[in-house]
């Protein structure tokens, strides 16, 4: 149900699995060998992704999961230009 994503500084973010697999890379990492019981939380640790970038990614996947196939008005997602280049590289790696 949930996955735990760990940043380079050990910051842990827990998101729903169905939102996390928006990122193709995370989906591939989670579907690796080793079967887990349904209510266990799998962990993925990213040693190159910093905390503020990782938390922004998790905000995005939740935002996308909420507004996809929903008829309510889609609000703007705030992406400040200061973190945008670093965020872009991470997002390119995660493919989401």
């Amino acid at each position, binding site marked *: 149900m949930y996955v735990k994503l760990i940043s380079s500084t050990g910051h842990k973010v827990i998101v729903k699995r169905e939102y996390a697999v928006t990122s193709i890379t995370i989906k591939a990492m989670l579907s690796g060998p080793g079967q887990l019981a349904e209510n266990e939380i799998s962990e993925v640790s990213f040693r190159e992704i910093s905390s503020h970038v990782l938390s922004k990614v998790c905000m*995005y996947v939740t935002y996308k999961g909420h507004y996809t196939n929903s008829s309510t008005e*889609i609000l703007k997602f705030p*992406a400040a230009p200061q973190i945008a280049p670093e965020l872009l590289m991470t*997002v390119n790696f995660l493919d*989401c």
Partner: protein
Amino acid sequence: MASFPPRVNEKEIVRSRTIGELLAPAAPFDKKCGRENWTVAFAPDGSYFAWSQGHRTVKLVPWSQCLQNFLLHGTKNVTNSSSLRLPRQNSDGGQKNKPREHIIDCGDIVWSLAFGSSVPEKQSRCVNIEWHRFRFGQDQLLLATGLNNGRIKIWDVYTGKLLLNLVDHTEVVRDLTFAPDGSLILVSASRDKTLRVWDLKDDGNMMKVLRGHQNWVYSCAFSPDSSMLCSVGASKAVFLWNMDKYTMIRKLEGHHHDVVACDFSPDGALLATASYDTRVYIWDPHNGDILMEFGHLFPPPTPIFAGGANDRWVRSVSFSHDGLHVASLADDKMVRFWRIDEDYPVQVAPLSNGLCCAFSTDGSVLAAGTHDGSVYFWATPRQVPSLQHLCRMSVRRVMPTQEVQELPIPSKLLEFLSYRI
């Protein structure tokens, strides 16, 4: 002559969902021309929609009321309905009451409309605010109408009153645009081959005349950071002007016929132009390269055919506010919605005699005006943009292409950021 590339199956393209239509009132039988709806416009804060009804009148419709009417009455909206259920807008400090409809008689055929707001859409330039004779209030919303005789009339949207009458053009004022930074600078494009820059905070003083076109100027558009202005006109002209020094930056070459419409993307990194040569080009305005071409006639016409009457003139183009979609309107009775990474449309809608199109402020509705004065509305294709695209828009809002090339990131990402995919 096909409307889509040969590898696309026309029946697989989704038809857009109609939201509603505003039909022009019955015309007096003795008036033959003056009915056309050359421009449609939405207010920058989404509160009003301006509808040039033909025969010299413009109707200002509160947009959320209009949308509610469409949902309640199906698709027809009676033009002279007196709706009593007006929704409350977020009024600040009680300066305006509930938004009301206004019908404005402009005294001459209306060719262009533009909304201007003293509230900046983005805090991009320092605006020196001086209050003059007309005592513009805290958030002034103005409508500028460009007329057949070259005059420009400025109206207050909330009260429907005439504020200013700008007289200088000698020919039809074909397009008007306000700077998006709230400074109430208005640029008008006219068939007298010039563009004029007016400062409405200074009583409508004309600040500058931009000369350079050899023929009619059809349209103009500001970049979102108000630093550049694009003007397009007859004889294949596409010009970019620097709006701090009012000099011409460059000419963009590539079209084969008159260029009639232009629009910037919301991050200012792309410029779309529509031409009578059946094509819409997407340019990078910082270096003049053509990034994408959207064709409306297949096989693509040769330059001689493209430069003449080919029955497939593209009349209007508009960028959506998510920066991913473009809508174009052509003479083959179709409105097309494109994604900027595909060269065939993702949705189409039927429309006869369309002349202009514009996305609503939140990007959810496309309005198109027709030759008989009516307006039709469709739901735009919406999807959650990828985070990569959101980052790209965020970076490109502040960085032109030359600075992007200097960033220390991998070349594949540099190409993505420059929209060269």
